[in-house]
């Protein structure tokens, strides 16, 4: 019973949730720890900007190309703008950015905290009566939660630009046409929704990474395991949450449309 895998997963999930809440409870320490927070925002945000943009550019390009081929069969290639924008703003932007961040930031965050744990740094903090959740976890989590949505904005813009480029050069859609349809791809509510999703993904991935780091045991092997678990769990969790959130959003939108 003790080693029953489901039980361990539940315990891990419980710990992660509690850690998330505890870290958010220390948000009033953010000013005191602003230096750590800025460092984390730099590591998570600024340093991930290039790879996120590169990634999203190519996602946008491939997406435009593929949808363009299909639309061309019906002579509707100018519709790519609409599809790209709506997909980018609501789905691809938030989730693909989360994906990049989990791979680039989540894994290393877990490894970093895991190393602190195995090298007694976390213990040392506790002994000095410095709460490790406030000192280590909170700046990372808040940094993640701030930079996730900001990177999503950049990623989405670049993704749409990539789509426009392909539409113009390879599919022969004039930029005017592209933009005309693009405008109809997303309303303000969709944009806020996309950013909210990104915030949720960031908090989830950040909490999973920190929790795995804090629960590391067993030296270098343990650190490797924490990093691997983080990527697997965070990806699974965000992709699943994404589905739930999208379903929920659709339901709400239909309800609202019905009322109006």
């Amino acid at each position: 019973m003790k080693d029953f895998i489901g039980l361990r997963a539940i315990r891990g999930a419980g710990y992660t949730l509690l850690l998330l809440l505890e870290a958010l409870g220390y948000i009033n320490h953010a000013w005191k720890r602003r230096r750590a927070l800025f460092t984390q925002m730099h590591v998570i945000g600024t340093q991930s900007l290039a790879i996120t943009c590169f990634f999203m550019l190519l996602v946008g390009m491939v997406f435009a190309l593929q949808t363009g081929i299909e639309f061309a069969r019906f002579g509707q290639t100018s519709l790519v703008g609409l599809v790209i924008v709506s997909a980018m703003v609501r789905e691809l932007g938030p989730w693909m950015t989360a994906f990049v961040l989990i791979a680039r930031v989540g894994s290393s965050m877990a490894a970093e905290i895991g190393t602190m744990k195995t090298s007694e740094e976390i213990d040392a903090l506790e002994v000095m009566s410095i709460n490790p959740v406030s000192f280590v976890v909170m700046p990372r989590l808040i940094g993640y939660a701030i930079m996730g949505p900001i990177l999503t904005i950049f990623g989405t813009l670049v993704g749409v630009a990539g789509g426009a480029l392909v539409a113009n050069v390879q599919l022969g859609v004039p930029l005017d046409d592209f933009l005309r349809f693009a405008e109809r791809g997303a309303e303000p509510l969709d944009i806020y929704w996309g950013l909210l999703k990104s915030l949720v993904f960031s908090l989830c991935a950040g909490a999973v990474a920190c929790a795995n780091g804090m629960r590391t045991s067993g030296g270098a092997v343990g650190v490797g395991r924490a990093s691997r678990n983080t990527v697997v769990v965070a990806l699974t969790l965000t992709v699943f949450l994404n589905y739930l959130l999208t379903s929920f959003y659709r339901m709400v939108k239909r309800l609202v449309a019905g009322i109006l």
Partner: protein
Amino acid sequence: MQTEESSTEALIDSTPMVEFAGVCKSLGNRKILDQLTFNVKRGETFVIIGYSGTGKSVTLRNLIGLMRPDEGSIRVAGEEITTMSNKELEVMRRKFGVLFQSGALIAWLDLFQNVELPLLEHTKMSRRKRTEIVQQKLELVNLWQDKDKFPAEISGGMKKRAGLARAIALDPELVLYDEPSSGLDPVIAYEIDKLINRLRDQLKMTQIVVTHDMESAYTIASRIGMFYQGGMLQIGTPDEIRTSEIEEVQHFITGGREGAVSRRSTTAIMKGRSPTFSARLEAGRGVEAAEPSGDAAPTIMELEPESSPIDPENKP
């Protein structure tokens, strides 16, 4: 007036700084601490020696409250810490300075910031005052010129010295050291020993030192406790330990050159087997200092180690 003061002082001094009584702790399936009992008086330097991997660090972790014992009581300055809430522990820990085995410096802070950290977190000192204290502590361990280096850029011994500077930044009443001199060259190891003695003599700090280094143990110890199979096999002054008649103690302090340890014990040491209270009693034939009196004790103590049928895994 003068006499009154000194008499209250004596009263305070008479309560031990640290009291372990019958502490047991199992990790995994092994009983690491088994009826561990010892006291540390105020102002003394208590040195814990013992074989590697037997539970000396675990003892310290229980004392700091990073682990909670399964049984028994641990008192610090008369206050029971095993039942403290995390909040109470946090307050209690401000009296502690701890030097971890690997230094445990925060990786993204340089040495100056590492030593400054406790001051920054727990005091409202001005920047100038903080700098002054950090400089004083870092100079004490000969690291002021390296204050801008990060932990990854310095050697193991330097990390340890920086860890020591951090541990004493707030002038704690009780300082715990986990192998302060391992990984240091003899000269610096001796410097650390002198530092420990200075902290005892000048600042009246109570100190508990875990070490493998007998040379250093003799230099710094007020008393030495030999940790063996989960408890204290013998506690005594450096001279008492040096002239100990217990074979296991002789075996340890002479690095195996003297004191034929029974085959059973050696195997147990090498295999890192579960220590048992009874086996320890047996080894410590007649040494009462460290042992709580147990009912089964007298009969066991008469057994010859070689002929002992007791399996170290099972208590009788």
